[in-house]
């Protein structure tokens, strides 16, 4: 049976089928452009090959940086925190840090450790400034059973949650094992700040992007030590190339029984600790 169709209906069907074709073509072109853009933006090239990298003779495929913390040596002087703030232009307040030091104090008769850091209001009151740090002698008169300090910083994880969640790929892992932030690409959504289990990231309101410890990438790629390592008077912070068997960090990892923070997160941190207690996370 022949079905009569009005011309405008035929025209409309033709219009819709063309619309469908145009959409498909658009989608294919879009996908192609997307793939190209991703290739262009993928940060897989050796930066030494690019002019934008600050150290031209540095090859990131030849290093694998790692960090060691010997909590038994740390004296809580906080020189590392101040050195970091000044080296990396971290905002001069008592709430945002690339690195910090935690103090664990076990008082006789108490089940759990009392924990504080340099940002604690009591400690800030003791230093008298939000830009200078010291631990207040707040447990005077208490019977302390055990006490120690734990320096903290970005763990530059092998499987970084912050990199995984970044919607634009602004946070990325370098070939030499450091997690960096491309400030010109970041949209400032702070998903990375939420995703980091270690609280290592803060958001810089003035620049509109997050910030975190980079193990002083601008220094280590020039053969220098991170500022905190250089400032530490007791050698509690150890840094080096894990591929070099003679480097301080290789010796540190080989000669000690080291552990990492929150291993259950699956992030595989690359900061190795010695001398921390069960309450440290």
């Amino acid at each position, binding site marked *: 049976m022949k079905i009569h169709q009005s011309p405008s*209906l035929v025209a409309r069907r033709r219009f819709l089928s063309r619309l469908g074709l145009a959409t498909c073509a658009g989608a294919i072109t879009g996908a192609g452009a997307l793939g190209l853009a991703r290739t262009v933006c993928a940060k897989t090239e050796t930066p030494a090959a690019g002019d934008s990298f600050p150290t031209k003779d540095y090859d990131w495929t030849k290093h694998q940086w790692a960090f060691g913390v010997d909590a038994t040596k740390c004296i809580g002087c906080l020189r590392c925190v101040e050195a970091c703030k000044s080296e990396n232009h971290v905002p001069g307040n008592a*709430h945002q840090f690339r690195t*910090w030091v935690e103090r664990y104090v076990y008082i006789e008769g108490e089940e759990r450790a009392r924990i504080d850091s340099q940002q604690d209001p009591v400690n800030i009151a003791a230093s008298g400034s939000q830009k200078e740090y010291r631990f207040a002698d707040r447990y005077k008169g208490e019977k302390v059973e055990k006490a120690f300090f734990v320096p903290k910083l970005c763990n530059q994880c092998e499987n970084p949650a912050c990199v*995984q969640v970044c919607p*634009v790929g602004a946070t990325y892992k370098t070939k030499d094992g450091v997690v960096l932030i491309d400030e010109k690409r970041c949209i*400032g*959504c702070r998903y990375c700040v939420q995703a980091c289990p270690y609280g290592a990231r803060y958001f810089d*309101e003035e620049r509109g992007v997050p910030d975190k410890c980079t193990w002083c990438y601008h220094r280590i790629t020039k053969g220098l030590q991170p500022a905190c390592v250089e400032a530490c008077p007791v050698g509690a912070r150890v840094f080096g190339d894990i591929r070099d068997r003679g480097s301080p960090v290789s010796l540190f990892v080989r000669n000690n029984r080291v552990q990492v923070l929150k291993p259950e997160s699956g992030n595989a941190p690359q900061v190795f600790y010695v001398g921390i207690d069960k309450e440290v996370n």
Partner: protein
Amino acid sequence: MESLIHFAPYIGWVYPNETVIEWTVLLAVYPYLTGLVAGAFTVSSLYQVFGFERLRPVAHLALLTSLCCMLFVPLPLLLHLGHPERAFNAMITPHLTSAMAMFGFFATFYVVLLMLEIWFAYRPYIIEQAQKRTDLLGKVYRLLTLGSYDVSESALRVDRKWVFWLAVIGIPGAHGLHGYVGFLFGSLKSREWWSSDLMPVIFLFSAIISGVSLLIVLYVVSCKVRKVPIEVDCVKGLAYTVWAFIMVALLLEALEFANIVYKGREGVDMIMEFVKGPLLIPYFVLQFGVGAVTPFLILSYLIWRGTTGKALVFGVTLSACLVLMSVFMMRWNVVIGGQEISKTGKGLLTYHLPFFGQEGALMALVLTLAPIAVLLGMIRLFPPWHDKAGHAAAAAS
């Protein structure tokens, strides 16, 4: 100069960088709006796809409500971004391992789908207006016809087919969009309060009840304003929908909480302290007691007694208002509550909500109400009413 950031007071031990709460009230408004989108779309689909005839009076209103809410979904995010001018980076060069990277694509797909469905649903009306009107609005309608003036029975049949299939695709579209928002939170392993497999489903069911409730309120208020009788059957249909879904929503929330408590992983002590302390009123009292259990009991009573007429309309509208409040509290308790529990599992923070400012209470309120304001304009352009007064008004205009 006023400080750029507000530092959160805390008790116990929290990481230093946590003393700035990064996701503010706007991040609670965002899932609230997407929830309303999904919920309103559910109502339209119940009519278009599943043939719930009694929901006919609100079917078109549901579509318009869904679109109006959807138009404002990206705004709280844009206002929150450190660099909103780079927002499209997420679509131009998405980082595909990120749960957030797909938002732009999902949202765009859904907006296009909604606009197409609305166009097909309103095509006869658009053509009628385009042919009748000679003013500026007539030009708008002529533009909206896209050159198609065919209103023959066979053409309308094609329209209905399109509406049906778009509604079918829209069901996973709208619900996927909102389940996805739940996944944004549920997939983060850094926070015990968020990290849950149930989170997407919880978000979804609370979304449905919030959207249906919004439609109840909009429908009843619109009838009052237009001075037309409220179709009790429609209100009853919407009430059944809320009643059925609220049961599941409550059950899922309870399961989620029971899971956290029963598993008792590290940090559970702090969570318990949190829910018994600062979260007691927003969580147990407002979200559960007043906002979910009370409307559930009211609706159960109305259904059980077979209440009808004004009493039914009043009871259902009251329940709907409570559900709308409850779902907002749920978003608040997830987004803000999650950040008030420290990642250390040993401390609690307190979020301070400023009234003014880019991320203040006033802005949140404006963003929540803005879709309603746009809806007021939209219903003038596309009257969604199916009653006689609606037709008369449409014919007169």
